[in-house]
């Protein structure tokens, strides 16, 4: 029998998964790890799937509409435990009050104001966007806020309404944004009150990758490079919130996953994009 490494998706002995296969002393196959196992050292990492094998915390904290009780919801295997989620919420709505940071830094994204919390269960059903469990933001006042970080690389799976000057990654105290530009026909990074527009895919479920290589920033949508890459952005890209620029310019739509790195992930970009796409089947 001939077996190439690419043919192997899983090996089991009895009921035990095999993580590595050696031929003599040569490693010939290794089970793919979770995203942060293979590409570690993120600043913050929010997702509805498990991103790191060693992570033992929950995915989200949910407030149910029936009595405002909150409960942590974790994972079954590497996926959000939607059974526990629906059992807890019941026939009403479930709102995300906290999206836990899986990076290990403990920088959870919070929303302490009830009416500003995004939705994950609507009338007893988990929110699905293109088949994937998603967090839904209403575009009126919803947002999640975290301690400000300076990013060098970001990977995000979003499906937000194309909205002038608004975005999925934002700041409550300044106009920094990654999202959409002035004409609704371009992607935009706004930093320090200056707009940097990029051609790119607009609307729909999109894997966004933005990477700053020594002050030259490149934007990719569904792994396709913008024709405007790279653009020189001399200012630090500081962000502290999701889906609501300056706390008063919100955007509606869905988020599944957003991972920010303090380092240049150019060499890992395609692999990280592939990891996201393999899981969510976007393009």
């Amino acid at each position, binding site marked *: 029998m001939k077996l190439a490494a690419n043919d192997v998706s899983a090996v089991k002995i009895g009921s035990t998964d095999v993580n590595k296969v050696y031929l003599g002393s040569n490693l010939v196959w290794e089970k793919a790890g979770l995203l942060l196992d293979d590409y570690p050292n993120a600043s913050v990492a929010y997702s509805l799937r498990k991103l790191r094998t060693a992570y033992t915390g929950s995915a989200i*904290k949910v*407030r149910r509409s029936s*009595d*405002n*009780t*909150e409960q942590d919801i974790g994972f079954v295997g590497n996926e959000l435990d939607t059974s526990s989620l629906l059992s807890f919420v019941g026939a009403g709505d479930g709102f995300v*009050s*906290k999206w836990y940071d899986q990076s290990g830094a403990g920088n959870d994204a*919070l*929303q*302490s*104001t*009830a*009416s*500003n*919390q995004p939705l994950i269960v609507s009338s007893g059903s988990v929110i699905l966007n293109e088949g994937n469990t998603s967090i839904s933001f209403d575009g*009126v*006042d919803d947002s999640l806020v975290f301690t400000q970080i300076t990013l060098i690389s970001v990977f995000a799976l979003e499906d937000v309404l194309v909205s*002038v*000057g*608004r975005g999925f990654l934002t700041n409550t105290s300044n*106009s920094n944004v990654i999202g959409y530009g*002035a004409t609704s026909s371009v992607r935009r990074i706004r930093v320090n009150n200056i*707009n940097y527009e990029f051609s790119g895919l607009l609307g729909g479920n999109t894997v966004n990758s933005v990477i700053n290589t020594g002050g030259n920033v490149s934007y990719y949508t569904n792994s396709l490079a913008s024709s405007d890459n790279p653009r020189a952005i001399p200012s630090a890209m500081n962000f502290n919130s999701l889906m609501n620029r*300056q706390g*008063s*310019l919100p955007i509606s739509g869905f988020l599944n996953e957003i991972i920010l790195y303090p380092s240049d992930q150019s060499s890992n970009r395609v692999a990280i994009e592939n990891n996201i796409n393999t899981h969510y089947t976007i393009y």
Partner: protein
Amino acid sequence: MYYKGTQAECDAYNAFVTSGQNYSGTTTQWADPYEVDGFWYIIKNSNYLSEMEEVEAMPIVNEEL
């Protein structure tokens, strides 16, 4: 739906709703009042009524491009 009033009225409405909702965990209040063109607005909770003027929506905030 929103209530439109003064800052004090909106703050009082938020405190009124918050006190009745038994929030726990991360959640600490019902809503933030917003000021638009000199008026204050707060999103209505249908279980808590107020004598403030009720409006369909807040005026659109001017967008900074």
